[in-house]
């Protein structure tokens, strides 16, 4: 089973890299981008075949390593 994890900065946490991307897009003439936020995408190949068990395991991985919940949110998709 494949797990796809998005890690994003929480609302209200300044994202200087996202800001730089936003400005660069504006400088290149791409109008209409109100905000850019940069995050991370992590893909895991799991041995687990039971969906709830896989979800619980990946959630624990996110809390313990993949995301820093002081500043980041995460979301998990299983396939």
């Amino acid at each position, binding site marked *: 089973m494949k797990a796809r994890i998005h890690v994003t900065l929480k609302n209200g946490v300044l994202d200087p890299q996202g800001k730089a991307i936003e400005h660069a897009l504006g400088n290149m003439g791409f109008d209409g981008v109100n905000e850019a936020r940069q995050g*991370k995408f992590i893909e895991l190949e799991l041995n687990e075949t039971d969906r709830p068990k896989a979800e619980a395991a990946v959630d624990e991985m996110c809390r313990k390593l993949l995301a*820093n919940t002081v500043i980041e949110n995460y979301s998990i998709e299983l396939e």
Partner: protein
Amino acid sequence: MKSAVIVFPGSNCDRDMAVALEKITGTKPLMVWHQEYDFDTVDFIALPGGFSYGDYLRCGAMSARSHIMKEVIKRANDGVPTFGVCNGFQILTETGILPGALMRNANLHFVCKDVKMTVETTDSMFTNAYGAGQEITIPVAHHDGNYFADADTLDRLEGEGQVAFKYADDINGAQRRIAGILNGKGNVLGMMPHPERMIEPALGGSDGRVLFESVMNKLG
């Protein structure tokens, strides 16, 4: 005073820290590799600066989960004085021993220069030899020193004297210009500036030496 310096792959201030500790305490510190599970009893543990694990995932994230850190966390919770500089500070926040997180500098630049900062509390084992509100000069060299915590945490840190140092000027976007913080018990200090690089006039100043002397005052 017996001390230990924890060494991770990618640490690069471990030897600066070892030189400072040996010069000031008179005893060569133990150098402990991150794959160890245990080390001799020491009076002081230092987590040095550097770019451990190439800053993969987040600065300090990998090191915080290494074998040796389980033992360091246990000892820090038992009250052993523990001192993290730069990457060491990032590692301490990643373990949760210290609150908050260190994010990319707000202006995205790597900042490498001597900075002025103020001593916010002298009521700690790391700062007792400084004067209250004293302005000191210590070098910084980091890309991710932008201290972040939620407003409640910041209020608590300020209210309970857990902010040890603040930058005189905003150099990296850190909330309330925080440069270094203590844990609640006061036995753990994390800071972005490098006092171990400012221990004698030949290095440009001695303001960092006072931090180690403060610890010596307490531990002998």
